[in-house]
Structure formats: structure tokens, C-alpha cells
């Protein structure tokens, strides 16, 4: 019997195995050339045989075939680019149910990856339905004909009795200034930085944003992410569509502040990022391999792995956050730009929201809550899979806490984290709005629209490696070439137009032409516990 070393890896130990049909293969080499992970290569069948056997065989019978590597640094991630480029359907990756991959590569430290949590959890939103339909007591609207007024606030809303209004004859007029509030589309393109994304992918989203605003009349806003903004955008009119993000690394803010005197318009807002739903309590991390020259320039850093700390250095409390960051950022833009804050959903979210609602300066312009189904470019797998808070109940808790004090709507609630992950972004948004959200933000979904092949079942998720096979999350110019910016932007635009149509299709049957924020009576759940928890009707 031959000896065997069980520590040696074979392909069947891996998470993905290549299903290859040599009989169909035309040996064009496209698959090997396009695999950014070098997980496959060409070999001669002769080399696959033991030496003696190979010698005894007729050399004329040898063939060239594709072989999957079992090298831990060249693992197949299931991205399927080989399948995309194969002209003869000879190759594809298949998920290996017998994988031992979680036991492999332990010398490299805790596993990291991008994407979403990979436990494919059951979602609360899928157990909720729009159950209050206008039938006889009131007429449903016509989604095609009626005028719908789909706008959401971003900015600090004052109580009516605190408004700086005075009566002048039969009219009211303003007698003093007030916090800025922008009325925007209830869908924000979430914060993904230049760096985490390729410049081309970021550009595609920015192009889609501008197109939606200028050609479609939809005031969609995009958040820059924490990675700086190109100078030419900072000094262009299109900055009006951009929400600038400041996170704990403050990357890019030297350049943003220096550009202030040259700005022709104000940005749409500023978003202070405290945490994100995919890896709550953890900071940002951009591998040195992704910090290419243009990323160094835009962020003002050398080529090194970039860590954003898990918290803002120097901020130890909500009071400080309000006094220092909110106030200074409000001040920087002359109190003309809404300043909002983004936190990972947590058991403590209600306490945070309550504190912000009591903010005596009235300068917090939005509370962005990010749930555990959100995506990220890089995180420890353990954080992605096991930390975080579902967004639905936390949103509801925050809304009800504000309602109990009569303060609902004063700090708009924006929520994200898994919106559209099952394909129905408009339905997710509508349900969350009925539960108290003013609007939603999407990030990972935009990447999917641009061509990302990753999913919550372990496919790809290599955003952190700099080898993104779709050219979205890499700075490798050869890979970035794979992204067609215009087609990607067009796909995002079409998605938003469909989202808008679908939102109307949900508003019409409940008889509403403006957003039904907090209209929980429109929802039912077929899950008793969910209905109880969210204070909506149970139906079976």
C-alpha cells in the first residue's frame, strides 16, 4: 500500500472544484488567462501520470488539459469567470459540499474576505406582506396615472412650534434661519470608497447618479465612502449629488477641506461613519495590494495596508460626537449642508437615537442604521458571519422610541443592510418605510448590478485581495478593464427606474401617493413572533 500524507491537499478538500470536460475543451486558453487567482493552469496529461506509466505510454496520446491547483495561495473561489469566457462550455466551478477549506491555511491568521454574511439567514422582511389593500372603503390609485411624490428628508427637521415662522396677514414668513433639509429620493447609493472599489466602478456609480438626477428627474444621492473624492468632482456642479463621508481614518479630508474655497456648489450632505453593519465594531481595512498610486494620491497616504480605527479617535461619547464632529462639519459648510451619522445596528441603537433626538444644537440631520446583512470590501470572516443586528426590528424600535416622545421624523431614519438581497429592493424599501424608515441605502446591490458575481453562499467574496475578477474591487488595471463603465452605469440607472416603478406599484394598492412612513397598519406578517415584535397585524 502506498504511503499517504493526509496533510497534503487535494482538490476535493477545497470549497470549489473545477468541473472540466477535456472532450469539449478547444484549448483556447481563455479560462487560464482570465483566472485572476491562478487557480487553474494547463498541463500535459503525460505529467499527470506516474513517471513509469508515462514512459510506457505512447507519447502521441498525450493531451493538454486544464488542471485545478490545490495550492492554498491559488484557491478557486467559484467566481465562474472561466465559465464566462469558455467558448465551448467545457469548464465551470462547482461548490464542494465536502469542503475542508475552513480547516486549511490556518498559518495565515484568521480568515478574511469581502461580501456579506455567508450563513444565508432567514430574513424578517420575507415574512412581511403589504396586507392592507384599498378595497371599497377607499379606492386604490393607478400606478401609471397618478402623481406620486416620492421624496425623503435628509437634514434636521424642527418641531412645528419651533419653526422660525411669523404670521404676516394671511401668510407665514421666515424670520430666522433653520437647519438645512434636502428632499431627496428615498434611495441612497451607499458608502463604498475609491480604494475599496476600483476608480472605474466608483465612476460608474457616480455617472449613474448624475444621469438619474439630470435625465430622469430622480434626486438620487451617492455617498462617497471614506476614501476621498477626485479633485475635479469636488470643484464641479455634480458635487451636489454627493454625500461626503468622514470615517475614523479621515482619509481624503485634507484634500476635501483644501478644496472648500474652490467648490462651486455644496455637497448633498456629510455622513459621519461610526460603524457598518457587516462588521460592527470593527474598523476599515484596505490591503496594501489595493493601495495603488492613484489611491495613494487621493487619500494622501503611502502604499501600505490602511486601517481605519474601530472608533473615531478623540470621541468617547455621543455628546462629544455632537459637539465636536457634527458641529465642526456643520461649521465647515456654513450650516448649509445636512450632517448625518451612520452606525451599525446594535442593541444600543435606541439609546444612541434618543440621545441624538435630544441634541440641543439640532444639528444631527439623519440617523443611518446599517444591519447585519450589509456587505463590505474586507472583514474577518468571523465578524461577517457572527456579529451584527438585524435591521428590521432595530429600525422599528428606534421609530417607536421617537414616537413615544412625539419626535418621529425630526431626525430622519435611513436604513440599509441587505436591501434587495433577495431581489426585491422596492418591496424591502416599502416595508421598511412602513415600519418607520424615511429611506433606504444600498451598496452591495450596486456591485451586483455592475457585474459582481459574489453571493451569500460563498461564491467569490474576494474583494479584499485586490484580485476581484470583475474589476470592481481591485486597482489592477488589467482587471479593471473588464468593467464596461457605461453599461454598468446603465444597469444601475435601469435598476433605479424599475425600483421607482415598483415602489409606485406598492403605493397604489394601499392608496397612497406619498411615502407611508410609519404606516405600520399597511403591513401584516405570517409569523406570530415577528408580528408581535414589530407591532403589526398577524395573518395566517
Amino acid at each position: 500500500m502506498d504511503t499517504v500524507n493526509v496533510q497534503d491537499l487535494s482538490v476535493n478538500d477545497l470549497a470549489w472544484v473545477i468541473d472540466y470536460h477535456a472532450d469539449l475543451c478547444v484549448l483556447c486558453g481563455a479560462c487560464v488567462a482570465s483566472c485572476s487567482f491562478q487557480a487553474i493552469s494547463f498541463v500535459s496529461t503525460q505529467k499527470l501520470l506516474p513517471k513509469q506509466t508515462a514512459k510506457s505510454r505512447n507519447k502521441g496520446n498525450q493531451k493538454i488539459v486544464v488542471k485545478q491547483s490545490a495550492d492554498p495561495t491559488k484557491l478557486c473561489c467559484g467566481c465562474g469567470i472561466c465559465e464566462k469566457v469558455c467558448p465551448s462550455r467545457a469548464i465551470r466551478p462547482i461548490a464542494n459540499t465536502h469542503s475542508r477549506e475552513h480547516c486549511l491555511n490556518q498559518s495565515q491568521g484568521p480568515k478574511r474576505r469581502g461580501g456579506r454574511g455567508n450563513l444565508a439567514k432567514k430574513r424578517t422582511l420575507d415574512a412581511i406582506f403589504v396586507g392592507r389593500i384599498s378595497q371599497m372603503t377607499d379606492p386604490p390609485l393607478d400606478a401609471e396615472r397618478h402623481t406620486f411624490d416620492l421624496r425623503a428628508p435628509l437634514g434636521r427637521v424642527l418641531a412645528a412650534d419651533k419653526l422660525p415662522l411669523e404670521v404676516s396677514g394671511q401668510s407665514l414668513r421666515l424670520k430666522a434661519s433653520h437647519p438645512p433639509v434636502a428632499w431627496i429620493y428615498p434611495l441612497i447609493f451607499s458608502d463604498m470608497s475609491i480604494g475599496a472599489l476600483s476608480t472605474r466602478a466608483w465612476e460608474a456609480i457616480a455617472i449613474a447618479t448624475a444621469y438619474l438626477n439630470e435625465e430622469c428627474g430622480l434626486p438620487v444621492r451617492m455617498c462617497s465612502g471614506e476614501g476621498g473624492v477626485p479633485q475635479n468632482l469636488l470643484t464641479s456642479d455634480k458635487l451636489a449629488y454627493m454625500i461626503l463621508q468622514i470615517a475614523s481614518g479621515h482619509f481624503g479630508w485634507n484634500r476635501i477641506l483644501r478644496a472648500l474655497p474652490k467648490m462651486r456648489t455644496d455637497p448633498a450632505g456629510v455622513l459621519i461613519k461610526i460603524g457598518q453593519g457587516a462588521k460592527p465594531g470593527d474598523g476599515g481595512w484596505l490591503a496594501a495590494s489595493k493601495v495603488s498610486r492613484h489611491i495613494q494620491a487621493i487619500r494622501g497616504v503611502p502604499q501600505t495596508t490602511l486601517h481605519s480605527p474601530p472608533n473615531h479617535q478623540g470621541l468617547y461619547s455621543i455628546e462629544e460626537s455632537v459637539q465636536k464632529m457634527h458641529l465642526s462639519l456643520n461649521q465647515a459648510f456654513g450650516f448649509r449642508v445636512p450632517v448625518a451619522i451612520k452606525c451599525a445596528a446594535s442593541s444600543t441603537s435606541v439609546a444612541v437615537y434618543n440621545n441624538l433626538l435630544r441634541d440641543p444644537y439640532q444639528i444631527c440631520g439623519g440617523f443611518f442604521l446599517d444591519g447585519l446583512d450589509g456587505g463590505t470590501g474586507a472583514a474577518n470572516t468571523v465578524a461577517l458571519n457572527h456579529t451584527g443586528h438585524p435591521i428590521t426590528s432595530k429600525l422599528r424600535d428606534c421609530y417607536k422610541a421617537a414616537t413615544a416622545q412625539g419626535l418621529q421624523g425630526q431626525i430622519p431614519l435611513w436604513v440599509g443592510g441587505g436591501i434587495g438581497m433577495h431581489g426585491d429592493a422596492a418591496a424591502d424599501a416599502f416595508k421598511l418605510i412602513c415600519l418607520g424608515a424615511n429611506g433606504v441605502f444600498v451598496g452591495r446591490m450596486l456591485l451586483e448590478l455592475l457585474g459582481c458575481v459574489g453571493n451569500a453562499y460563498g461564491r467569490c467574496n474576494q474583494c479584499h485581495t485586490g484580485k476581484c475578477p470583475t474589476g470592481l474591487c481591485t486597482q489592477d488595471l488589467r482587471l479593471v478593464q473588464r468593467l464596461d463603465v457605461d453599461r454598468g452605469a446603465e444597469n444601475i440607472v435601469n435598476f433605479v427606474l424599475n425600483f421607482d416603478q415598483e415602489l409606485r406599484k406598492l403605493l397604489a394598492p394601499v392608496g397612497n401617493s406619498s411615502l407611508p412612513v410609519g404606516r405600520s397598519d399597511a403591513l401584516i406578517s405570517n409569523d406570530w413572533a415577528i408580528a408581535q415584535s414589530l407591532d403589526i397585524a398577524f395573518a395566517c
Partner: protein
Amino acid sequence: MCRIGALKSLTPLAPKSALELMLPQQEGHDSSGFAMIMQDLHGAFAHDKEKPLLSMACTVRGLALVNEYMDQHGFAQLGQWVPDVCKDKKLNLHAMPRYVFRNYDYPEIFHYRSQAEREDLLMDTRLALRDLLHRENAGFVYSFWPDVLTLKEIGDPADIATYFGLWDENCRLRAKNIVVQCRQNTNYDIVRYAAHPFFLQGFTLCANGENTFFTRNREFQKSLYRGYMGFESDSQTLLYTLHYVLRELKWPLPYFKHVITPLPYEEQKTRQDADVLLLIRESLANLEINGPNTMIALLPDKTMINCCDAKKLRPCVIGRDEEMVVIASEVSGLNALLPKRDITCDIYPSERELVAIDDNLEITRWIQ
């Protein structure tokens, strides 16, 4: 759908006129009730018009509780009207044992207090009586306010009128303003508190349709003012919004329409007063109505108003002659009461219109 109507007259009217307005609209009646609020009273309450008038329906025990409470709190009873009820068992109504329509003098100390303090006293007293009667399951108190009388009952409207003697041309209940409703359409059980018109501190309102933003209206109003309570009907929130905009915020009347049916953002942005309208919409987004509704309201200064939802899914029609202006949810009511009117002068308010009728029957049409 509720049938609603209102009459504003230069001369005091008996309830018979209101019945003549409402019963031709009776198609769809389900015997859920009849309710009316009269303001600027004559007849039985021609005197002591500045003294608060209590309107309630209760049990014998309830009456004793109320008497005791009013005595303890220094209210002295002045006049009253006791209906001479018809006890014909064939009448279809759910009569209560006692109906109280009486006015009181203020407690001595309140003769020296401000008008605002008196108004608070009256509301707090009504809420206290309501709570007292509710706890003992002993009755319902509808209004406690000078020169305002409320009558409500569950049953067939014609039979209710017979029971209270309202068909009588010489009925001693007379007023220059009557707001009336037949067939209460409520989201909940048929209960007396759910029957509009509703009343709060001089404001009367009735509405038909379905307020699809009832939940968010209610959740917002609950913490806005202590008098905003009950919420037995989705129309109540409209009264509270009217009260909040005009009495609490002290904004001019047209802003009530801006609050309940704000203009679309794109339209607002182009207006000269965009800054004010956007601010209002931001702050009072929770008071928007977004379903089919029309409402008739009577203000403390006796101005009568009418407006409808932003899509005109539930309009009213307004007709008039020299003596009176009449609003009805169905034109059949107008035809019955004012058959000789000039129908070309009828007003069908648009979805952006608010119509106000003053005490001289002068009509102002204000477009949002």
C-alpha cells in the same frame, strides 16, 4: 360611506332642516346613527350663550356621578333642555336612559381668570367627565363649551329624530350653524364616540372617506396635546390637526390645507413661498392625509369651511340661497333642501381648494 352635511343660516334653524338635508342621501344607510353639532344657539339656549353647555348621554348612575363632580368643582347649573322623548318601541335606536343638555356657570374663581385658562378648564372638565363615565360604564360626554350643543345616537336617523322630537318645526333646539352626519363609517365598532362631528375647544369637524394615514396621524398627535385622545374614528385626527394648526400654532386658516394635503415637492419648489411650505411639510409630515376624505368644519368664530383630499376622491358640493349656505356630500340633499336655488352657483371645490363661509354667508374660495 358617511353622509355628511352642514347648514349655515342667517336665521336660526331647527334640526328638521338638517334632517331634510340628510335623509335624501340615505342610500346605504345602515342604521349606524345620526349626529349633529349646533353652534350659535337660539331657542332653549338663546340666553347664557357665554356659559358652557354640557352635552352628554348617560345612565342614571352616570348622571349622579356627573352632578357630584360638577358640584365638587364649583360649576353651578343654569338652564337646561330635556328632550320630550317618544318611547315608541318600534323606533330603531339604542337610546340611553338620560340625555343631558345644560349650561353651567363657571366656578367662582374662573370669573377672574383669562379666556385661555377657562378654555383649558372646559376641556379638562370634559375629559375628566369622560374618564369618570368610562370607568363606570355609565355614559358618554360629547362637548362642554359655550353656545355649542351635540346630539348623537346609534340607530336609524329618522327614528332618532322621532325619538328626540327633532321633526318638530317648533323644536326648541335652534341654531344658525348645524353640522350633521348620518351613517358613521368607522374602522372599528359602531360606538358613540366614533360618530362625527367631533368637537374640541370651539372646533367642530366631520369627514367622510378613509384616512389612510390615520396610524401616523394618531401616533404623532398622541403626544402633541392632551386633548388629542380617543381616536375611535380615523376622522378625529382631522379635527385635531385643525385645532393644532389654528389654535396651538396660531397659523392662518389656509395653512390647514397646506398641512393636510401638501403640494407635491416639485410644485412646492417653484413657488415664491417654497421655503415656508417646505418647512411646514417637513415638520408636519405626520399630519398629512393621503386617502379619500372630505371634511366640513366649524371654527370658534363660526366660520364654516370645506375642503377635500388632494386627489378629489371625496368631494362635497356647496349650494346656497339668500338665507342659507348648505354643504352636502351628495347633491340629492341639496336638491331636497334648496330645490329653487340657482344650481349654476353650486360650488364643487377642487382638490386644491378651501372654501370658507363667514357669518354673513359670504363665501371665500381659496386655492392652495
